[in-house]
């Protein structure tokens, strides 16, 4: 794990692996990273908004739980984005297959589950 973290910050390491690719592929990889990062930042913004603008929900600390969950999810998406970017860059330079990942599916399920919890909370709030 520390090896891959060191790799994110080591310019020579990535540049010495394999052969330099068409720079347009690197730029496309960079834009994919940025799109993931914006996804992470949107989750962080959602967490901050939940903490600041939601009224207290019927279940104790549900609001705080949702906020912390969204914030941690946003942090995870951001860190995973840079890891995936580095591994993709490496694969491009080595001519290997791009790294496959279950992460997008898992993230979609978590977000859907969170939305269902919120729907339940709103409906519970509606009934006296």
């Amino acid at each position, binding site marked *: 794990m520390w090896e891959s973290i060191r790799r994110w910050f080591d310019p020579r390491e990535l540049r010495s692996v394999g052969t330099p690719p068409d720079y347009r592929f690197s730029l496309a990889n960079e834009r994919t990273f940025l799109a993931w990062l914006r996804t992470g*930042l949107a989750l962080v913004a959602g967490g901050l908004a939940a903490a600041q603008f939601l009224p207290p929900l019927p279940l104790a600390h549900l609001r705080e739980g949702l906020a912390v969950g969204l914030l941690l999810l946003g942090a995870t998406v*951001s860190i995973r984005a840079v890891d995936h970017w580095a591994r993709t860059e490496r694969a491009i330079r080595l001519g290997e297959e791009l790294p496959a990942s279950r992460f997008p599916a898992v993230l979609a399920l978590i977000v859907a589950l969170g939305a269902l919890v919120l729907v339940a909370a709103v409906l519970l709030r509606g009934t006296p």
Partner: protein
Amino acid sequence: MTGDPGLPAERTRLAWRRTLLTLTVVLLLQLRPAFTGRVVDAALAGVAILVWLVVLAVAWRRATGSPPRRLGRVAMPLTALGAAALALLGVAHVLGRVH
């Protein structure tokens, strides 16, 4: 190189600008509780501003510079870590309010 070499670079610069804009929105949300007068909230906001400034200083060249053909190795991990740091500051803020 075939095709237009300028467009991928331009698209990448614009993607960086969108990302920095999103980061700024997160910062503004982060600053909001600082106006309640609690010292802890002001301190968290101060740290958030510092994180934002560091990311901006590094990533701005990527967002505006000449065609970014060389990989910006520091800008990418640093921006991701900055986003994660803002998230953890938010967690600290929420946990600081739970009684």
